[in-house]
């Protein structure tokens, strides 16, 4: 049987109401491929360029993304919040997918999550790399992420298995409940905290994180989880 083109198109039409938000900072090597891959499934790709100095913004733009540019580097959390503000104030998207610029997420996971959110009317879907065996994070990373997930569980009561995954689906309603004040890397916990308070429906979805040599360079260290903890207490 030939691939079913018409259902592909229907799927694409469905996902037209979903906007992908990508915080972008110096990812010139990979951003074009990431944007092009996403354009196969999603109609609207927004890159928030956080003061890149390597021409990432222009590359993303010519790959077909809408590019918002911070005048200086503020941090990934700030870039996400700018993207959320843009979606709420200047588009009529019903959902946002947050996606990392370094190519560590799979587009298929993102579109499956978005479809699930649309079909089942779930407000928030968190991607988790620990729900199946596909992702091989290595021991150190596993420890850091498990500690983060335990901390999140202690603070919010949400039984998340992976609190620091950049791949999520957020409904427009959820976006209205989020106001990220942590500009740096603590926003992942902050999103979970704020959404936990909102009591919106949520789910975790198994995703694979691709640890390429490129994305490995940009991982978080164990000590940085101390920073995240302090950031969340001292506001």
């Amino acid at each position, binding site marked *: 049987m030939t691939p079913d083109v018409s259902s592909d198109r229907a799927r694409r039409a469905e996902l037209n109401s979903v906007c992908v938000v990508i915080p972008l900072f110096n990812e010139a090597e990979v951003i074009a491929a990431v944007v092009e891959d996403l354009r196969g499934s999603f109609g609207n790709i927004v890159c*928030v360029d956080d003061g890149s100095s390597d021409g990432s913004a222009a590359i993303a733009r010519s790959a077909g993304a*809408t590019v*918002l*540019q*911070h*005048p*200086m580097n*503020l941090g990934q959390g*700030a870039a996400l*919040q*700018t993207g959320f*503000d*843009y979606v709420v*104030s*200047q588009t009529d998207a019903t959902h946002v997918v947050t996606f990392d610029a370094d190519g560590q997420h799979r587009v298929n996971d993102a579109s499956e999550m978005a479809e699930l959110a649309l079909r089942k009317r779930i407000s928030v879907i968190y991607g988790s790399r620990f729900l199946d065996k596909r992702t091989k994070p290595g021991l150190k990373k596993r420890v850091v992420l498990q500690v983060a997930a335990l901390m999140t569980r202690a603070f919010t009561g949400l039984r998340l298995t992976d609190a620091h995954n950049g791949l999520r689906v957020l409904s427009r309603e959820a976006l209205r409940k989020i106001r990220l*004040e942590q*500009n740096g890397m603590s926003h992942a916990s902050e999103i979970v905290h704020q959404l936990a308070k909102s009591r919106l429906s949520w789910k975790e979805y198994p995703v694979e994180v691709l640890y390429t040599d490129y994305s490995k360079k940009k991982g978080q260290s164990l000590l940085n989880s101390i920073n995240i903890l302090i950031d969340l*207490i*001292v*506001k």
Partner: protein
Amino acid sequence: MLSQWILVAAFVFVGFYLLKARRGSNQQAIRRIFIVIALIAGLLAVLFPDYTNVLAGLVGVGRGADLLLYAFVVFGLFYAVYQYRRQLWQEKVNTDLARALTLTQAQLDKVVEERESS
């Protein structure tokens, strides 16, 4: 010892300030009162050094010099915490400003694009 109670209270206050202080005119008034008290106390300590020994005796610290050292540490710490909070606030203002600029630019881009395509 009285001095221990005072010092513990001072450190607790600084810790509380680190976690909870919000910007406002009350906060500013408290800070200003502190500064005025510190200035007057400093002046008196210079003019009447012997009285620092008397005061030290009253609160149970050995010498006036020790009392001054304690006061210096508490004020220094408070100052560091205050500056840290100020910096956080400043960062937030910067972020809001940069974000407003970014979103305005996006709106402009859209208008320009629509005009060019029509």
